């Protein structure tokens, strides 16, 4: 199959060249996925798909465009690429737009990334139903449960890319996820919810359905009797499941497009201290089994680990070849792989125990940040912490501030990253945070 996808990508490059493109980059993909959901004792949905697609970038007379299609009938594809080349000619020339230099393709790693686990293809209907029944039983193990929905999804995807200047590469990965969501009845009209999903590359990596259901239910039960929290300034402890959101907002403006377009608080801050030295982040494309592991990026640039934040300073922008050229810098990669926040020595329980008075954030609700200034404001839910003890649930509150200021007030990084994401973040503790509530 990979071979067939490779041929399809190469044929698309040839079609583009025949239509008049000097250079082209094409990727062909194919995937299979199965998804079951189960609600309150009965099967709710079964979905099974095989999907395919082709995307192509064109370089025509110093002009550039990108295209995608799922209509792969030979005559339709030829017409599509022909029209795409003609469209590109109508644009204005851009001296910064060139196909990635082949030197960037050199030194491609060959590490076994452990992204493919053949056990996925052997998952039976009976196995899926058994997991779902166990999840469902766990979710319904409390009389206050109104509804519980469980799900299982497994997927196997493959892709191949080829370019007119000698790039060829393939990729393949498998995954299986299952989990559940539960709604319970509180006093009055409120119906608190809890959820938990876990995934792995193969069935051996999964944690048990019982553990997942127990976490989802326990999270919902912890929300019973939620009160509106206070307005105050103080210590904020962020659960690993919630901490990703903050780090993601901090790093999003480190992209070449944001920086080059002056829509980034990281402009002119490369290498300059801006946040706490406790925050160390590296980009790790070769992490075995990682959710964003790869041998090469979307432009074919060979993968290598990269410092993102170290010594309190941003060390590298995420630079595609285009924005690197515009900024007169060397390209790194335009797309993040696994981003790892280097863990500290204590887990959440130990941190909470000597936190004194604080607010412990378990999840966010809405909110946003301004990439240019770093100003942010986020809705939150969590618990009051008094003398190191977790108190009652609080919600209907906002946390407001500036991302650079917040991360300069980072006082501790936990030892407990949430593993089910490509951005691996442990518990984070910040001082002097503005809370807005009652």
């Amino acid at each position, binding site marked *: 199959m990979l071979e067939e996808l490779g041929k399809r990508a190469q044929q698309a490059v040839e079609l583009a060249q025949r239509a008049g493109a000097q250079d082209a980059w094409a990727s062909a993909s194919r995937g299979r996925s199965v998804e079951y959901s189960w609600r309150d004792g009965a099967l709710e949905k079964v979905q099974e798909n095989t999907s395919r697609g082709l995307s192509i970038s064109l370089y025509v007379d110093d002009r550039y465009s990108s295209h995608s299609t799922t*209509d792969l009938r030979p005559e339709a594809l030829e017409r*599509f690429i022909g029209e795409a080349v003609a469209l590109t000619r*109508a644009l204005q020339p851009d001296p910064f737009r060139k196909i990635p230099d082949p030197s960037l393709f050199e030194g491609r790693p060959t590490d076994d990334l452990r992204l493919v686990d053949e056990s996925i293809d052997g998952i039976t209907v009976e196995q899926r139903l058994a997991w779902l029944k166990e999840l469902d039983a766990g979710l319904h193990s409390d009389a206050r449960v109104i509804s519980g*929905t469980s799900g299982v999804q497994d997927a196997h995807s493959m892709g191949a890319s080829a370019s007119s200047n000698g790039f060829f590469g393939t990729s393949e990965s498998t995954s299986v996820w299952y989990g559940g969501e539960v709604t319970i009845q509180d006093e009055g009209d409120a119906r608190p919810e809890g959820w938990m999903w876990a995934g792995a590359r193969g069935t051996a990596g999964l944690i048990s359905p019982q553990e997942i259901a127990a976490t989802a239910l326990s999270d919902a039960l912890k929300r019973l009797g939620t009160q509106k929290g206070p307005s105050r300034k103080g210590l904020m402890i962020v659960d690993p499941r919630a901490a990703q959101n903050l780090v993601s907002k901090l790093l999003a403006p480190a992209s070449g497009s944001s920086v080059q*377009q002056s829509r980034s608080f990281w402009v002119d801050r490369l290498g300059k201290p801006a946040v706490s030295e406790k925050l160390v982040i590296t980009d790790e494309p070769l992490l075995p089994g990682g959710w964003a592991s790869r041998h090469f990026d979307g432009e074919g640039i060979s993968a290598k680990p990269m410092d993102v934040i170290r010594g309190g300073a941003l060390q590298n922008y995420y630079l595609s070849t285009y924005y690197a050229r515009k900024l007169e810098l060397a390209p790194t990669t335009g797309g993040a792989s696994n981003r790892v926040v280097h863990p500290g020595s204590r887990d959440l329980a130990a941190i909470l125990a000597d936190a004194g008075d604080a607010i412990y954030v378990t999840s966010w609700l809405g909110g946003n940040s301004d990439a240019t200034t770093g100003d942010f404001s986020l809705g939150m839910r969590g618990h009051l912490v008094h003398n190191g003890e977790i108190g009652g649930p609080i919600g*209907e509150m906002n946390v407001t501030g500036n991302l650079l200021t917040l991360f300069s007030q980072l006082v501790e990084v936990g030892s407990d990253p949430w593993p089910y994401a490509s951005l691996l973040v442990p518990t984070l503790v910040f001082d002097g945070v503005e809370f*807005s509530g009652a």
Partner: protein
Amino acid sequence: MVTTLSRRQFLKTAAAGSAILAMPRFLAGCGPKAAMPAAAAQLAQGGFFQSAFGIDEAMIRRVLSELTARGADGGELYFQHATGSSVSLEDGIISKASSSVDLGVGLRVVIGDQVGYAYTEDLTEEAMLAAARTAAAIASGSALVAPTAFRRPPVPSYYPIEVPWSEVGIAGKLPLIERAAALAKAGDPAIDKVSVYWGDGADTVMIADIQGRIVEDYRPMTRLWVNTVARRGTEVQANGSNVAGRRGFEWYDDALLQEVASQAVDRTMRLFDARRPPAGEMPVVLAAGASGILLHEAVGHGLEADFNRKGTSIFADMMGKSVSSEHVTIVDNGVLPHERGSINVDDEGNPTQRTVLVENGVLKSYLHDSISARHYGVESTGSGRRESFRHAPLPRMRATYMENGPHTPEEVIAAVDHGIIAETFTNGQVQIGAGDFTFYIKNGWLIEGGKVTAPIKDINIIGNGPEALRKITMVANDFKLDSGGWTCGKDGQGVPVSQGLPTVLVSSMTVGGENA
């Protein structure tokens, strides 16, 4: 990847290069449409999938027969051919374009509230029959007889356009994009960078259901987005504005370009003087237009019937009860001409409509798809929508808004001693069960002593749906529908929506800010 936020419904501006952009209010001045030229008229009449892909009624019948071989209460084939095109300007040149074709068919079998689903991008009969067998596996009954004849009920036309987007060449778009950029650059000497994004396209869909109904719809969509970066000394601010709708090329006149460009500049320049309000609970005035985001989050999602059928919505026991002031009438409407959230038919082939959710403060109706309509024994409200052929439909909003009330905007502002006005937004979110919702204000104003005093920015508001409804104390008479490019997310599916509001006072919500 798994959508772990599936219980948290969110609303956002669809990504167009930048993640955070303010949303516009609607622009007036679009006159009535001329008669449709031949090409567009033909698309609206249908026959596209037969002429382009050889999908005739006999083939549809054979696939439906396979789909219902193990029984079905409902089900359909959802054929889709979506084309999209975008062009963008950055650093003064129009140097990037893209195009896309998404073709496929989704096949669904419904048994009670159980769904079997499969899709394929390969429209050969062999591939469709295989997908039909996969979808049918959920059922275990006896075969249905597929329709022997098909009905093609008339489909209304809420968004006729003069020329199909596939026939509008790029050459005509370039001067408009350059004009929008030039207008923005000239809007203020502090403007440093301008980027413009243009998007257009159309979905051609054909829905063939097991009752023998075939419905076709041609759904155009276009959007223009202007982003500006301004510099004052060392301080940099960025913002933007966009408009979107089920419109054709003829929509873009100079007045529209001027309005989008000037809004982008105005919203950017205002950020230099804006501050954060004090933290805590305070009255919030929702400016007419995009503030309809409050309804979308606080009420709309909670009234989608799937959540109520499952008992997971905070509104599940409130039907027929008084939930708000008598001034409050909330509508979800799929039939507004040319609006982003409008649909001629829903994605199950049902006629769409104007659905009154709350009438004079009393909860009147949920938003139904065919599954929930069958569950509650009512007619579908034509709210079954899906992102694409890759997804089964769900009850979704279309254009959600509040009708005019008795007050004037001036009276509403004068009634506030210390509070804020919310004017432009980037996104919102709601938890269906707890009822907590949020929306993020990009631009707003401080009110002190009944007067507007200073601009504010980048503030999240959080409230509880039923509580916020009860706290609506004033509704003005200046209704506006926003035509920003809003996309609503639910269960991993994004659909285009619209929203609107007259000026409204909510007596108390929690405003993010700084503690004194």
